[in-house]
Each structure stands twice: as C-alpha cells, then as structure tokens.
C-alpha cells in the first residue's frame, strides 16, 4: 500500500529551546486508512500534524508525502497542501468569504481552475457535507457544526487524498459532533479519503483502523483500538482514558461479571450484547 504520509526519524524542538517536543518518530499512514492520534495536552500532537502538510518543517529527520514530496522542499508545498488538507478546532478560523459557496470557491480560484470546473466541484462537495441548501447563506448565520462542514467542504473541493482533523469536534454541540463524525467516516469509507484525527473524546476513536499514542515525545502505541485500549492503567497515567463503554465493561469484569466476553468491548452495541449474553448464562 502506498504511504500518504511517512516520517523518518522525525524530531522537533522550538527555536532557542533545548527540549525536544518529539524525537525519532517513524510513522507511516497508508492510503485509505483511518488513524487516530492520541496524546495528553502538551504531548506535541498539533505540532506533529502541522508537519504533515508542511506548515512546520522538520528540525531533524524527514517527512515524505505521497512517497515523492519531501516537506523540506518549498517547491512541493502547494502540491502537498492540495493533497493533504487540515481541519482545525475552530471553524471560524478558516472561513474567509461572506457567502458559503464563495468560501468554498476561494481556494479553487487561487488554483486558477476554469469557472465551470469550480462550479461543478463546489456543488459536489456541498452535497457531500449536506450543506447544498445553504450555499447562498452567509456563514455567520450557520451553527458551529455547519461552519465546520463548510470548512471540510472547502478542503474536499481540492480533491485531497488525505484530511487531517485536529480536534475538529471539540467546540461543537452534540449534534454538530455527531454530524461531523458521520461525515468523517463517510469520507473514509465511501470516498476512500485517508483520515487522520486527534480528539480527547475517546468514544470518537473506538472505530478507527489504528491508534497512535504519543507520550513524552515518543510513540508509545501504534495498533488497533482493541489492542491499545487494553492498556487502561498506562493510558490513564498519561492523562488519557479509554472509551466509556470499554471502561464500564472492564469494571464489570473486575467484579466478576461479563467473564464470557474475551474481546475488548468498544461500542454500545457490543456492550449490550455482552450483558444480554451474561444474563443468558446466569438465568
């Protein structure tokens, strides 16, 4: 499988500061994957993500995009940023125009695409994020979740292979959060977009393909969720946690229940199933 993002012995420190934010990171994100990155506040997650579309360049080691572009080479930056989009926490920070469809057309105009092509892409991406009816509205009239959908649409319009979501749901209300998560999954499953996401809400990453845990500047885990979340004590010591259902299932197990379920429980459905099974065994 082709690597969309690959780091080789990546290290970073801020100017005039000795302390390394991270060092010797070897990460490979393959085309079509959905990967969650976890780490406590100050673990260097956001700094790492900014390396992936050349907003920050490595102090040590290298970042290779799509197996051909080294982020150290300024000539590649435009290509890289079209290939890997970045969605931030606060949607307000990425909206530039006064009308939704103009906002999405903005980057495409900068690319010098023909008018017809721009129109086609704008309509296409607005439909993907379910915001087509809002295309003539000013962004300030939208809710936080809707603004975030516009942010995603403007990145989609560039037809990226990968999108990085840096805590893209942390400022949204429960419905906004659900909508964005649904779109993220759809982009990955239906359109094959490679997804990289960070979040502090562990329930959001229970269903990704792989989780990378950063701790003290190193990769502590890089594995499937059901394997990473086995390490509850260690994750908690790092300031992280595990999904609520997983915690509940483990706590019940510790008290002698759910002894039949061997696999780590990650979803509400699995949890209810395990309880019903336990009831069946007991009755």
């Amino acid at each position, binding site marked *: 499988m082709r690597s969309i993002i690959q780091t080789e012995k990546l290290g970073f420190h801020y100017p005039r500061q000795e302390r390394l934010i991270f060092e010797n990171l070897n990460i490979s994100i393959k085309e079509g994957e959905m990967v969650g990155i976890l780490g406590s506040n*100050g673990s260097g997650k956001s700094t790492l993500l900014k390396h992936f579309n050349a907003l920050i360049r490595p102090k040590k080691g290298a970042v290779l995009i799509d197996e051909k572009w080294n982020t150290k080479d300024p000539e590649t930056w435009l290509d890289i940023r079209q290939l890997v989009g970045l969605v931030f926490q606060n949607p307000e920070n990425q909206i530039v125009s006064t009308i939704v469809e103009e906002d999405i057309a903005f980057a495409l105009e900068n690319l010098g695409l023909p008018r017809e092509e721009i129109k086609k892409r704008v309509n296409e991406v607005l439909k993907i994020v379910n915001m087509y009816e809002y295309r003539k509205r000013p962004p300030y009239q939208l809710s936080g979740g809707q603004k975030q959908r516009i942010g995603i649409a403007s990145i989609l319009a560039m037809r990226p292979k990968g999108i990085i979501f840096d805590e893209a749901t942390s400022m949204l209300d429960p419905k906004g959060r659900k909508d964005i998560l649904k779109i993220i999954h759809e982009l990955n499953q239906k359109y094959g977009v490679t997804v990289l996401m960070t979040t502090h809400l562990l329930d959001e990453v229970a269903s990704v393909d792989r989780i990378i845990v950063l701790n003290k500047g190193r990769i502590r885990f890089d594995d499937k969720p059901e394997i990473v979340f086995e390490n509850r004590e260690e994750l908690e010591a790092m300031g992280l946690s595990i999904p*609520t259902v997983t915690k509940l299932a483990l706590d019940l197990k510790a008290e002698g229940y759910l002894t039949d379920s061997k696999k780590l429980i990650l979803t509400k459905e699995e949890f209810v199933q395990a309880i019903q099974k336990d009831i069946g065994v007991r009755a």
Partner: protein
Amino acid sequence: MNLLKIENIQYSYGKNTPFEKEVLKNISLEVNANDFIGVIGHTGSGKSTLIKICNGLLKPDKGQIFYKGENIWKKGFDLKHLRFKVGVSFQYPEHQLFCETVKKDIAYGLVNKGVPEEEQESKIRQVLKIVGLQESYLEKSPFKLSGGEMRKVALAGTMVLEPEVLILDEPTAGLDPKTTKQVYESLKEYQAKTSSSIIVVSHSMEDISEYATRLIALDDGNILLRGTPAQVFSNTERLNDMSLDVPITTSILSMLAQKNPSVNTNIYRYNDTKAEIIRLLKDVKSIE
C-alpha cells in the same frame, strides 16, 4: 436568599439595525449558594449571552437582574463590585494570560480589587493548591506552560477573587481527560470551601452529568428544560430536537431497558450506571 435572580430577560444584538437578532427571549433563573448549575444548549442558543447578562457586561432590553436582592441596573449600583462577586471565565481563558510570571497574572485581579500585598501572597498560594499547581510555578512564564497548565492558571486568576458566583464557559474544551477531571475537581473543592455557586456551560453531557446538581437547557433564547440532571436527561427526544443528547451512560441504560424492563434509565452518573447494571445482573441470578 438567592445570590442571583434573573427575571424575564430579553436581549437582542444589533438593536435597531437590519441585523437585529433576538438572542434571549424570556429567561428566568435563580442561583443559590452551593448550586452547581450546568447550562447546555446548541451553538447559538444564547448561552454566552446569558453569561454576560449575569455579571452586567450586557444590559438586558427587558427584565431584571438582582444580586442579593438588589437590582444591578438601578442607579448607583456598583457594577465593578458585582464583577468581583460574579466571576466569569470565558472560553479559552488562557488566551487572556499576559503577565510575565504566573504569580503576576493571578495577582492581577487582586491588585485591581485593592487587596493589600501582604494578603495577596496567601490567597495566591491557596488557589494554586486548589487548581493543583505546585508553588514552583509562580515564577514561571505562563507562556511556557502546556495548554492544560495555562487553563489552570487562568482559572486560578478568577478564583483568587473569591467570587460568590463562578461562571465558566466551556472550561474543559480541548483538555485531555485527566486535566478535565482535575479542573472539575478543583471547582468542587472551591465550592466546598466557599459555599459559592458555580455555573458551567458545556457541550459535554458526560462531564456535566457527573458534576452538576441542576441543569438548564437553552434553545433559541428560551429555557426549554430545567431540573435535576435525572429530570432533564429523561427527555431524550426533546434533547435530540434541541441538537443535544443524553450522556452515553444513560443511552446504554436505555438500550438495556428495551430487553430488560426493570432497568432504571433515570440514571446518568458513571458509578450509578455501573451499580444499576450490577443490580440487573444480580437480579437475574436471584431469580434463578
């Protein structure tokens, strides 16, 4: 007597302009000592405006606000004094840090309040302990701290003024699970020491369900639901209509209740949820 009383508040932004928007329609609320009130509502429902109304940063178009029985908008009322008594910590308060040391930043409000220097020191040490930072932080630059530590410093700067009503807008957004817990625990500790009332605005139904004793759910400028968390979270459908949700614990219990009618779905805290599921599993055993 209640600390704050808000009666039939109505407020519009951009009054008498083409952009006029009615943000609060008819809000009434009483805040008593030792209350821990959770405010939930979708983005744009009026939560942040309500906060600004509470400490007199915005003047309502209609309705009245009383602080300990005194109308805060009557002539001669000391609004500056009110803002020491009703402390607000806005979203991302760490963006408002600006002094060269943590100590100076926390002391900033105390200096403005006119607290003598000798008293400042002990007050600062006290709040530092409440938010869980070591004294070695006092001489550090706030800008060299991690996001979570900066949030704690900002919170300490609000707490040190000893407000009787402490209002926080999304105090834990963007914080990792451990820091989130520490922030909520420090709020509880502050409340236990001062009998103050705390109002927290949050999008996390899980956090709010663990700590709040009362909830209000705002929608389109009105309070549509209010009561204990159990009362409010018993309205799954109405909450969903308001772009809100029940905590994941309540939703698990609802799923279990479909097959096991004895399950009490009126539970929201983690430990109570665990106990209820154990009860269900034990019951089965005893039937046998």
